[in-house]
Structures are given as structure tokens and as C-alpha cells.
């Protein structure tokens, strides 16, 4: 797919557009992207194997650290699986608390995404404001769970911390603040010309492609696939709550933005419902140390899409196999499609638009990227010629100027 003539740019592993070490290889013709490929694995720590040699309790914290942004997603998904195998009936209150944290996490993740998206298109002001407002959620999470990220609220059989009435009020108060901030951002997203210019029609992923490539989460929902595990296969307390699945049909980055903003609004009302409906009672049932043998597939709607854990136990206190399918792994396959004949300038936002979370993705084993080693070894002569040719076609001729200058500097 990468033709020899084209300019190849390695994006990553250390690149401002990616907050994580991953490597995309982009072939350019002028400003146009002709081909792109992704190499994963930099973030690979071998978690799946490691889980096999840790007890469920230890494993839980490890799983939580698959990803710092959707930590609650992974840990919940895992404990749900373990509880199902062990046949534990989790108290209703615990389920509601999990739901609460899940929605708060979704808020912080989507606000974060909005900021990052802003940064990717050079709109740092948006980054600054969204992250300022995100701090409200972070404070809540810190107060409720005891940590800003990697909350450690889940434990097998329930949750570790209860919420009191004072916290309830704080939460509701915060929801109001966040809601009108979000309304403002929706207004902004719908109204700011430069923003729309950069997002609309970029990173097209048609409905068919989305289905063919099994896209999940906002990426899929922006291509008109109404799929949300919270509705389709309710877990925690979602069965008892009512909410809409946001989906639009624009199939582009702009659509994904709107979907996420819409989901934010949904999350606010979900949290309000939780606060209203949350029953009294215990928050934890004592789990056995040894989990009986069995196998379970557990699903969870992470902010980025469906998270899927397969857990098989063998009656000991350590799992036999833990398989994690993070949402990004499902979505990453559609990135190349989205990048097809876009401009280089669109690359960061298109990649960002699936809200990639590579630390989730590379659970397995690492790879050393052969291709991005080319960074310094790209035959710059070809690069130059291509560039010159491209601009010549557009009526700009460097070659003569270039010759003159080289002469000049040889004399000098």
C-alpha cells in the first residue's frame, strides 16, 4: 500500500498528536495522504499473561491499570465476569454506585476528548476550557472514590466505598454546573465556523464500513449504528434507568463530536436518576478466595465503546485466562479507512476521533517498530523531489531557486 515514491512520515511513537506511544506510518503526496498503516504494541506490558499469575484481588488492580482513562470500565467488566462465575449476587446499592462512577467516568472521558480534539485542530482555548470544567468531575471522583483516576472503587462482590447524603448534594450541584457548561460547548460546536470547517466531512466512515469493520461506541453511533451495551445487554443498574442512545448519521468526525456531547447530556440525567433511585442497603458481599471453575464473557459500554472481557477460572484463586478486547482495538481497524485521501492536517483529528486508547489496546506482547526507525533515514532527496514536483504542478518552481541558492552558499 505504501508506494516507494511517496513521502513517508512516521507519526509516533513520540509525537505531539499522540499522548501515547504508537506508530502510524503515513504516506504523503504533497499534503494528501495516500496510504497509512498503524503499528501497535509500544504500550505492551503483558497484562493478560500477568493476570494468570496473580490472585483475583491483585488482578483487579492490574486490570484497572490497563487504561487510566477507562479504568472503571475495565475493572467493572472484570469483576462482573468474576462475580458471574462465582454466582455472587451483588447488592443493588453497589450496582448503583458502580453506575454512578461509570457515568462520571464517561463525563470526564468525553470532556477530556473534547479538549484533546480541540488541541488536535489547534484550538487550544477549547482544550483549556473543557479541562477546566473537567476538574469539577475529577474533584467529585476524588471525593467519592479516593483517587482522581484509577478509582479502585470496585472489588469482587461490590464496591469499597459508600456515598453519603452530603456527597449526593455535591454531585447534583456539580451536575447542574456541568450541564450548562456542556450546553455551551454544544452551542459552540454547532456555531463556531472554524471548528466546523475542520471537523465536517473529515474522517468519513460509512455505515456499511462501520458495520463491516465492527466499529463500536461513538465511532459506530456516529455512523448511524445504534448500538450501546447499556441498552442491548444491560449490566449494573442500567436496566432500571432510562436514557436515549445518541446516534447521528453524518459518519464524520463532526458527528462523533456531537454524539459525545449528546452522551454527556444523557450522563447528567442518568446520574440524577441514580441519585433519585439509589436504594439503601449493603454495598458488599464477601467473595470466596477461590473462584469455582467456569467461563464467562462480560461486556461493558466504556466511553470509547464496547469493552469485552472473557474470563475462565479453574477453581483456584488465580484466573486461568483473561482476555480483554478493548474498544480501541475494534475501532483502530477503521482508521486507515478514515484517512483515505485526506490531508495530512486531518490526520491528528481523525486519529483522535476514535478516542484511541492504546494502553487498552496493547494488552498483549510488545513489538519494536521497524518502520518508524525510518524517521532519520528517510531518503530526503526523494522527499524533496516529490515536494518540488507537487508544487511545480501547482505553478511553484523551487528547483531553479534551489539551485541558485546552493550555488550562492557554496560561494559564501
Amino acid at each position: 500500500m505504501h508506494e516507494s515514491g511517496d513521502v513517508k512520515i512516521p507519526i509516533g511513537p513520540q509525537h505531539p498528536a499522540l499522548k501515547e506511544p504508537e506508530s502510524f506510518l503515513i504516506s504523503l503526496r504533497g499534503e494528501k495522504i495516500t496510504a497509512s498503516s498503524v503499528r501497535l504494541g509500544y504500550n505492551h506490558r503483558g497484562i493478560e499473561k500477568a493476570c494468570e499469575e496473580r490472585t483475583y484481588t491483585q488482578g483487579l488492580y492490574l486490570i484497572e491499570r490497563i487504561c487510566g482513562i477507562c479504568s472503571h470500565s475495565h475493572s467493572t467488566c472484570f469483576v462482573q465476569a468474576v462475580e458471574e462465575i462465582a454466582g455472587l449476587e451483588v447488592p443493588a446499592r453497589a450496582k448503583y454506585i458502580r453506575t454512578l462512577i461509570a457515568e462520571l467516568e464517561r463525563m470526564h472521558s468525553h470532556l477530556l476528548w473534547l479538549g484533546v480534539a480541540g488541541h488536535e485542530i489547534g484550538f487550544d482555548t477549547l482544550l483549556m476550557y473543557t479541562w477546566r470544567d473537567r476538574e469539577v468531575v475529577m474533584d467529585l471522583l476524588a471525593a467519592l472514590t479516593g483517587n482522581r483516576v484509577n478509582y479502585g472503587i470496585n472489588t469482587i462482590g461490590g464496591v469499597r466505598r459508600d456515598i453519603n447524603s452530603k456527597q449526593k448534594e455535591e454531585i447534583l450541584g456539580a451536575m447542574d454546573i456541568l450541564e450548562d457548561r456542556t450546553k455551551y460547548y454544544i452551542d459552540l460546536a454547532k456555531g463556531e465556523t472554524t471548528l466546523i470547517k475542520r471537523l465536517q466531512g473529515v474522517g468519513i466512515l460509512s455505515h456499511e464500513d462501520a458495520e463491516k469493520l465492527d466499529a463500536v461506541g461513538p465511532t459506530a453511533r456516529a455512523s448511524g449504528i445504534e448500538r450501546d451495551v447499556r441498552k442491548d445487554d444491560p449490566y449494573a443498574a442500567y436496566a432500571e434507568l432510562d436514557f436515549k442512545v445518541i446516534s447521528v448519521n453524518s459518519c464524520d468526525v463532526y458527528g462523533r463530536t456531537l454524539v459525545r456531547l449528546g452522551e454527556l447530556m444523557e450522563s447528567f440525567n442518568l446520574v440524577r436518576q441514580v441519585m433519585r433511585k439509589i436504594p439503601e442497603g449493603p454495598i458488599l458481599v464477601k467473595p470466596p478466595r477461590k473462584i469455582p471453575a467456569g467461563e464467562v464473557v462480560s461486556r461493558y459500554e466504556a466511553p470509547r465503546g464496547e469493552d469485552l472481557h472473557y474470563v475462565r477460572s479453574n477453581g483456584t484463586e488465580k484466573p486461568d485466562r483473561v482476555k480483554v478486547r478493548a474498544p480501541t482495538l475494534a475501532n483502530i481497524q477503521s482508521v486507515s479507512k478514515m484517512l483515505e485521501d485526506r490531508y495530512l492536517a486531518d490526520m491528528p483529528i481523525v486519529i483522535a476521533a476514535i478516542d484511541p486508547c492504546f494502553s487498552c489496546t496493547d494488552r498483549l506482547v510488545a513489538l519494536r517498530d521497524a518502520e518508524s526507525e525510518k524517521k532519520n533515514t528517510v531518503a530526503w532527496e526523494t522527499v524533496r523531489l516529490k515536494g518540488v514536483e507537487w508544487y511545480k504542478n501547482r505553478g511553484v518552481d523551487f528547483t531553479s531557486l534551489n539551485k541558485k541558492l546552493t550555488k550562492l552558499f557554496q560561494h559564501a
Partner: protein
Amino acid sequence: MLKAFFHILIFPGLLFLFVFGFLAEYVDRKLYARFQNRIGPPWFQPLADFIKLVAKEEIIPEEADVKVFKLMPVFALAASSVAILYIPIWGEQAVFSFNGDVIVVLYLLTIPTFAYFLGGWYSRSVYSMIGAVRSLTQLFAYEVPLFLCILASAMLADTWSLSGMARFYSQHIGYWFCNIIGFVVSLICLLGKLEKVPFDIPEAETEIVAGSFTEYNGRLLAFIRMSFNIETVVGASLLAAVFLPFGLNLPPAAVFLCYLIQVFFIIAAISFLRALFARLRLDQMINLCWKYLAPLAFLQVLFNLTLKVVLPR
């Protein structure tokens, strides 16, 4: 002779420019931060950055063409500093002026861009390459409307010397209003020249790391940043001289004060715009310049032509 040296080295030459440059950067960054509801850097920040960079180890990438790589930043710095000498910043009279210095100044202001282009081109890293080519492409987009606007106002003043223009406009204060379109357009173009959002395409961080300057570091980077600051000052002074002819006939101190106010007003405007928009794509930017700014500039020219015919002297 001595006087010339004084002008070149002290005022309004290098020393003044450096100080003013630091001030400009500070104001820009501080305002930017405040627009974003942050505190922002302390007043000495630009100075500290500069000294640190100058004192830092210098690495020259082995692929780079050393001569050009080293020469270009200095070149840019020099070019942008020289320009100030032709711009009236204290009263109506520039240090040096002759009929036609407008064009000289404009071209002096173009040189840095070329310098960055060559610097990036010869550091021979992919990112620098693309950045360099982008900055040149961008140059072709904003240069025309900018020149047209200045031209328009020159035509109205019927002189090719900046000092002359300043004199003319300060005498017919009413005329500045005719150039309002020109002022706005050229302000936007200035953003392009200074490679600031929404036109920071050549150094778009998330796309091509730091564009032409990816490989630069230490002293050379310091020079580049400095020449950007000086460009800011010169550009702002130019616009002030051409479009904001206020308080030129006050007592000298007041004149200088007015000048400062005008320049800082323009700098503030720049950092405001910079906080306001998302970065445009190269093609979008070119569209903007050719489809909207250039025609507007033309309009300005025609308007001024008719004005010259209609209005009595």
C-alpha cells in the same frame, strides 16, 4: 556616523528591539493565558527563555547542511531588525526614510519567511521539510492582500515613504477611516506572517511537530524566536504607522506613548484572534486569502483611487 550607529545598535535598533520584542512576547503570552482563564507566565519569562536557550548545548543534525542551517536564523533576525529603521515610531519621521521605503520594509519582512523556509529545508528532517514548504505556500497566500492594503493607503497618501504616509495621515486625520478595511485585512495577514493560530500551519504542533524548527535548538532556536518577536514588533509598528495615525502632533513623549499604545493594541488584537480560532487547513487558508482577503484588498484600492479623484487636496 556615530548617530547612525546609535540608531542601529541602541534606538530604534537592536537593543530597543530586543527589549520591545521580549515585552511583546510577554504581553502576547500573558494575554493568551488570561483569555484562557489562566495566570500565565511571569514578566521575565521571555528573557529567561532567551538566556537559557543561548546558554544551551547546540546540536546540529548530521543530515543538515550546516552552513545554511546556522546562517538562516541570523539572517532572519537581521532582516527583521533592519526594517524598523524605516518605520516612523517617534513622530512622523523615521530614522532613515526615502521615497519608496514602504516596498523595502515589506520585502525585509518577507526575508525571514524565506529564511525559515531554507532553514527548515536544509535541516532535512521530514517534518522540517513539510513545515518549510508549508510556510512558503502560506507566504504566497497572505502576501498579496497585505501588500495591496499597504499599497492602497500609500496611494491615498500619494507617497511611497512610510514617513510621508504618517505625515499625510496625521494631517488629514479623517482619512484613516477610509482605510479601515485595509487595516482589518492586513491585521489578519499579519497573523499569517507571524505564523499564529489560525494560520500556524507551518508549525502545526500536532501535525508536523514544530515544522521548520523541529531540528533547531539552543542559540539558533533563540534567534528564531527572537526574530519572530521582532517581526511582531515591526509588523505592528508598520500597521500602526500606516493605519493608525494618532497623536503624531503631540509633544514627543506623548507621541512615543501613543505609538506604544497603538502597537500594544495590535499585539493584543493578535493574541485575541489567536485564542479565538481553530487552526485552518492549508487549502482552507489559501481559499480564505484568495477568495475573501484579496478581493477586499482590491476593493480598498479601488475605493482609495476613487477617493483620490473625488476629494480635493
